[in-house]
C-alpha cells in the first residue's frame, strides 16, 4: 500500500507541511517494500487549482492513502473519486517519519 505525506522537504526527517496543494514536496512511502520516494510538487507554485492538480499527481502515482492536516473541498472530492483515502494527522511540528509511524499504528481518522 502506498501512502503520501505532504512535506516541507525531501527527507522523512523533514516537517509535515500543513497544506496539501501548496506543499513543496510529496513523500510517498510503500508499506510493503518499505521504499520511500520524494517528489517535488510541481503544482505548489501554480496560480490556481493547486488542490486538483496535486490530487491528479497522487492518482497518477497510484497512491492509496493521503496522510495530511487539511485538504480543500475540490481536492477531497478528486481524491475520493480516485479511491484515495484521506487520513487526518494534526500533530503540529511532526516529521514525515512521525506521520508514517502514526499511519502504521492504524489510529488515524478518515476525513
Amino acid at each position, binding site marked *: 500500500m502506498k501512502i503520501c505525506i505532504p512535506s516541507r522537504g525531501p527527507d522523512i526527517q523533514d516537517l509535515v507541511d500543513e497544506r496539501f496543494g501548496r506543499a513543496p514536496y510529496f513523500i510517498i512511502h510503500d508499506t510493503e517494500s518499505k521504499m520511500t520516494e520524494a517528489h517535488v510538487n510541481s*503544482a505548489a507554485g*501554480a*496560480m*490556481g*487549482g*493547486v*488542490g*486538483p*492538480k496535486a*490530487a*491528479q499527481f497522487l*492518482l*497518477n502515482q497510484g497512491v492509496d492513502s493521503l496522510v495530511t492536516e487539511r485538504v480543500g473541498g*475540490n481536492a477531497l*472530492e*478528486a481524491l475520493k*473519486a*480516485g*479511491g484515495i483515502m484521506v487520513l487526518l494527522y494534526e500533530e503540529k511540528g511532526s516529521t514525515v517519519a512521525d506521520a508514517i509511524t502514526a499511519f502504521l499504528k492504524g489510529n488515524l481518522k478518515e476525513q
Partner: protein
Amino acid sequence: MTTSMKITIASGKGGTGKSMVAANLAWAISQSDRVTLVDCDVEEPNLHLFFPPDDPESTDVQVLIPAFDNSRCTLCGDCAGFCAFGALVVAKDRVLFFPEHCHSCGGCALVCPADAITEIQRPIGTVTTRDLSAHLSLVTGTLNEGEVLGVKVIQEAKRRAEKPGWMICDASPGTSCPVVETLHGSDFCLLITESTPFGLHDLELAYSVTSHLDVPVGVVINRSDGKDEEVRRFCNERGIPVLATIPFDRWIASVQGSGDLISRVDPTWKERFIALGGACRSSVGGT
C-alpha cells in the same frame, strides 16, 4: 446635443469614497443630461444602496465550460494535463470538473483526442439594470461568490450600459485586472484620494495604471482636512488637475453612512457635482 462621454471612477484602494463620488456625480448630471451609472466593482457592488430599493430584472452572465461525453472518453488524461488552472482531474472511472477554477479557454475540448468534450454555458454572475429616473439608469455587475472571472461580468455590464449620454463606471479598488478592464475604452478617469500618506501612496499606484493605459486623469481629494499640500504637489509635478476637494465633515459622513447622497440633500453639492462633470468634459476637450 447629447454629451457622449465615458468616465471611470477609480482609486488605488477602497474606502476613499469612490462610490460616493460616482453616485453623486451621476445623480447630479442626470438632472439635465442622460446618464448610465455602471457598478464595475463586481465583487462587492454597492451603488444600488444609494438609491431606493426596487425589484429590478437581472440577467445571467454566462461563460463556456466543458461537458463530457462519457461514452467517448478514454480517460487518457490529456485534458487535465493541459488545464493550466487545475479545473480538471481524471480519476479511475471518470473526469471531475471544478467549474470555479475554469477560465473558459476552451483548451480541453481542443486537445481531447477522443472528441469527448463539448462546451456549454454556465452562469457566473448577473447584470442588473435599474431605471432610477427618466435620465438615470444603474447597471450593476455582480460576480457570484466564489467565482473568479470578474472580468467577464465587467465586460458584459459595460456592454449592456452602452447608450448615448454619459457612462460613469465605478471601478473596483486597487490596480489589478478588473480595474484595467473597467478603464478599457474610457475617455477620462477620476482618481479619488484622501490627503493622508496612505491616500497619496494609493494615488501613485492608481496613476501608474492609468498612465500605462494612456487614459487622461483628474483627481478628487475626498475627506480633506485642509492639509492637502503633498497630494497637490504630486499632482502639480505631473500636470494632473485637481478637479474637486470634498472636506471631511461629520454631516457628509452621516448622510453617506445612511445611504443618502449629499447632492440630493443639498443643492449646493448638486451644483458642485455638476461642475465636476463639466470639468471632466473640458479636460478631454469636450464642450
